[in-house]
């Protein structure tokens, strides 16, 4: 099980961030997520595997300085 924005979601082996986002709605503006506190940006969504029990937050918008 993983926690995504404080909600439990079933974890699957080899699940990537891109896989996770595909099963979620309204992620249009999500270009960065935090996985266990670490920032992962959209160019790496396909290749970043999610570990079991991960705590994930989707950063909704990147607004610049």
């Amino acid at each position, binding site marked *: 099980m993983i926690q995504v924005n404080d909600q439990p979601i079933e974890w699957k082996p080899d699940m990537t961030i891109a896989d996770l986002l595909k099963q979620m709605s309204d992620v249009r503006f999500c270009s960065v997520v935090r996985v266990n506190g670490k920032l992962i940006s959209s160019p790496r969504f396909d290749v970043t595997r999610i570990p079991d029990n991960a705590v994930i937050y989707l950063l909704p918008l990147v607004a610049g*300085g």
Partner: protein
Amino acid sequence: MGPVQLNEIKAVPYERSEVVKGYTDRSLHIDLTGNDIRVDPIDAAVKDRFTGGKGYDLWFMWQAVKGTTKWNDPENALCISAGPLGGTPGYPGGGKSIVTTISPLTGAPIDSNVGGYFGPYKKFSGFDVITLTGKADQDVVILIDGIESQIKIFSASDLPDNAYELSDALTRYFDEKKPVNISVVTAGPGAENTYFGCLNFSWYDAGRKRVRYKQAGRGGTGTVLADKKVKAVVARFGAVSMKSNQPADLEALKTVTKTHAKEINELDGKQNRMSLVGTTHLVPIMNDHDCLPTHNFKFGSHPEAAVIGEDVYEHIFDKGFDGCWRGCAVACSHGVKDFSPFTGPFKGTRVFVDGPEYETVAGCGSNLGIFDAHTILEINFYCDAYGLDTISVGTSIGFVMECFENGLITTEHTGGLALFFGNRFGALELIHQMAKGEGFGAIVGKGIRQMKQIFADKFNADPDFMQDIGMESKGLEFSEYITKESLAQQGGYGLALKGPQHDEAWLIFLDMVHNFMPTFENKAEALHWFPMFRTWFSLCGLCKLPWNDIVPEDNKDTKEPAKVMKHVQWYADFFSAITGKKTTPDDLIAMSETVYNFQRVFNLKMGTGTREHDTLPYRAMGPVTVEEYESRQDRYDKQLTDTYGMDISGMDTAARVAALRKERESQYEQLKDAVYDRRGWTKNGIPTKETVQRLGIDFPEVLEVLAANGVQ
């Protein structure tokens, strides 16, 4: 350092005007040439039209300067205001100052929005805006004392010349017992000797028992203060509460303040964690999206960027409350204690560094090929202490390094410094030289526009290449984002009134990553709404970070998530609660549109403000060199074939660079047309007569300026 010695040369008591519904309706004018001090009422019509903050600054500057005024003419005015909502404790970002002046870099109005307590203290002392004109005949310190109701001017000698020690010394001098009552505005020796001097705005950090500061960085506001021989402007005021602005509806103000602060307290930890890392989270994000300036904006990422981002600074930043305004829940103004510089006058001592923020890390780190968190701290420390803008410093030195690596300049010109990318010592040495106005640093301190001229005239450097790689527009150095793949952000920089600073529009992700604005019309609409809304923060004396750096959890379900409309509504409620004027989100845009167009006409008055001044160096649009093209060859080849339908099989890289350039430059010109049209401007980028009439700024002088530029 001995005790501070100041000699009073003028003292004027005044009757403190109460703040009512966010306004004092008074302006303070100090002419330094004769030490003339004047307090004037502000007309209701001016208030209605210009709202406050930057609007007031520009209005009073317009009165002070002629179209021929240069930055160092005595009549140039340096204006500082707070805005009607500024000085609300507990409202996130609720206490900024706005500074404007005619810039030494651009020759036109520059504006800077800055933290610290000066703006609110000055307002509660009785003045919505202050203007400084003239020039003193000796170094002076100005005190606006809202506790004693006195304005004083002191002659000053033997003061520390750096802002770090001077802010501290003056804070303790003017209120030894209650240093929290003091805010100091200072420049520094770098401001005296360069064109991009900044101003440091202080506050007393009661938790750490030390003076902290934030910078009004852009465009040389510090250079103007130094030119007027003002060492510091000090505001003194006592307790501030939610009642200090005498809001029209105190309960409504408390409600909206609590709601916004609560949301930030709940969500910042799940989103950008700014209360822990400031804006350094942007370093890895920009790097991953190929937007982090590296080696003078040549590239957008670097494998070593991980060692200068949030992962490192989170551990270096001193723990504690870091709001640059009282009770700001974002609390992102971090610093580093017990830092020991390796170079310069503070070598081997222990200092506190305020920063770094993202812009400093990117500009003075990756852009110079410096991937060392501690060197960036040292550059940050000295830039602030010397009164230098870290953005112009970083972008200018990046330009110098690329010129050096390409043989346009050599050690013969640089006084022996081998200024290759990554030369940490060289970068620091240049900064020390800038502060003294000596050596090659004295040339770098003039900014990129002048350097291009000097390198071409004196060193025989190729002017066309320098035009392409010199990251300035309108004379101002770029802030720190790569825009090659975002046409909308090219507009965000090129069409910004003061020059390429991202505070008007930051559209890279909406455009490049989310493809949210595919057409020219979409981009033009964004380049209307976002600059207008962002302008509004400076009219009111607020920080924009709490608007969209922390986003409501249900934002994605709203009709216009990019605008974070829930927060926009809160800002309208905030404005209504303080001023008593029932205000909608559309009203906020209308307030800004008036001031925005007035500023464009002001540019025109100063001889800029037309299409030709909205030009960008090609590096902001695409790859200048074969090396750059080949570093992202797949991307560029694909665009030439798929987007532009070209057969590139017979083209070498140089031909492909040229073909892409033609397309991208043409797109930028089309974008200008679309934006001008949306803003109600002519094809030459000038507000039409109908536009200024609609906005109520059709004063005779405005119409004269338009007419002189062919707009009847």
